């Protein structure tokens, strides 16, 4: 497996795992509180919509000429990656609160309890919340998997990394029947942000007509440079409530 393919697989797997953990928290909360049938129906409905979006956008992306594809994909990955990275840096510095799955779970459970009486059969509240949660988290995954996969003409590998992450999170979720609060979610988000930004710089630059010194090997310099810049920003802006990404297990 080439370096770029490995980067694709790891980035898509981590991004998907983070989003799947967030979706799991929502589905668990409404499932436990309001009943599993409607919650899982909402989850399945969202997966169908995401599948349809992938089937519509995927072939269109792969049919673009390679330079245009790299420019569009590089630009989108950069904008998206910088958002992930910025948020992960701000969380690591302590400037914004960490993503707390246990707290989010408690909030979702109390909102579900306050949403009115349960009726036998279909529960619109559980369906809608599960549908929206999975759809919104899933859209980011579809976007990342499609752009990464299409640009390298490795949609199969991107799909495999996506499905592996979803299956893993689902299996662990079924086993523990609780939000995955001990997963180092911010460190994962930090890593994905570094990868998306690095590949965005590389492909966006190439798509715009730049030639990288050393060709593909330039990525071996870009990834560590983005990582060092990000860690430097964490150090520079760190507050009392800070954590260094990867240095400790962040209770996300």
């Amino acid at each position, binding site marked *: 497996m080439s370096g770029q393919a490995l980067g694709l697989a790891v980035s898509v797997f981590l991004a998907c795992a983070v989003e799947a953990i967030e979706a799991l928290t929502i589905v668990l909360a409404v499932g436990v509180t309001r009943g599993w049938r409607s919650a899982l129906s909402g989850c399945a409905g969202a997966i169908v919509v995401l599948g349809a979006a992938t089937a519509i956008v995927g072939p269109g992306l792969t049919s673009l000429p390679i330079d245009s594809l790299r420019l569009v994909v590089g630009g989108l990955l950069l*904008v*998206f990656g*910088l958002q992930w990275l910025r948020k992960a840096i701000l969380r690591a510095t302590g400037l*914004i609160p960490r993503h707390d799955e246990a707290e989010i779970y408690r909030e979702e459970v109390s909102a579900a309890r306050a949403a009115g009486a349960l009726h036998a059969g279909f529960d619109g509240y559980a369906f809608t919340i599960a549908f929206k949660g999975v759809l919104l988290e899933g859209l980011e995954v579809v976007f990342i998997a499609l752009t990464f996969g299409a640009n390298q003409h490795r949609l199969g590998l991107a799909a495999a990394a996506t499905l592996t992450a979803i299956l893993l999170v689902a299996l662990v979720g079924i086993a523990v029947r609780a939000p995955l609060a001990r997963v180092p979610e911010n460190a994962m988000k930090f890593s994905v942000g570094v990868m998306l930004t690095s590949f965005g*710089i590389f492909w966006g*630059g190439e*798509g715009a*007509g*730049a030639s990288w010194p050393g060709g593909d090997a330039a990525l071996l310099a870009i990834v560590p440079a983005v990582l060092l810049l990000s860690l430097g920003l964490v150090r520079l802006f760190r507050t009392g409530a800070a954590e260094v990404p990867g240095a400790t297990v962040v209770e996300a």
Partner: protein
Amino acid sequence: MKRVVELAAGIWEFVAGDDWVTAAGVILALGLTALISEDGSAWFVMPTAVALLLGFSVWQEARKRDPG
């Protein structure tokens, strides 16, 4: 027409998030690279732009949240 505007706004919100300056900066940096890359030597534009954009974005947020 209203639906189209709402859809465009939704897509922009999804892609650019709450930091439109960074999104606009990325587009400008790509444009600048395309403009000066006739001989392919404009590779330095994107890394420089990303360093400046990310640093500015974090600094701006830090200043907003912790003015002291």
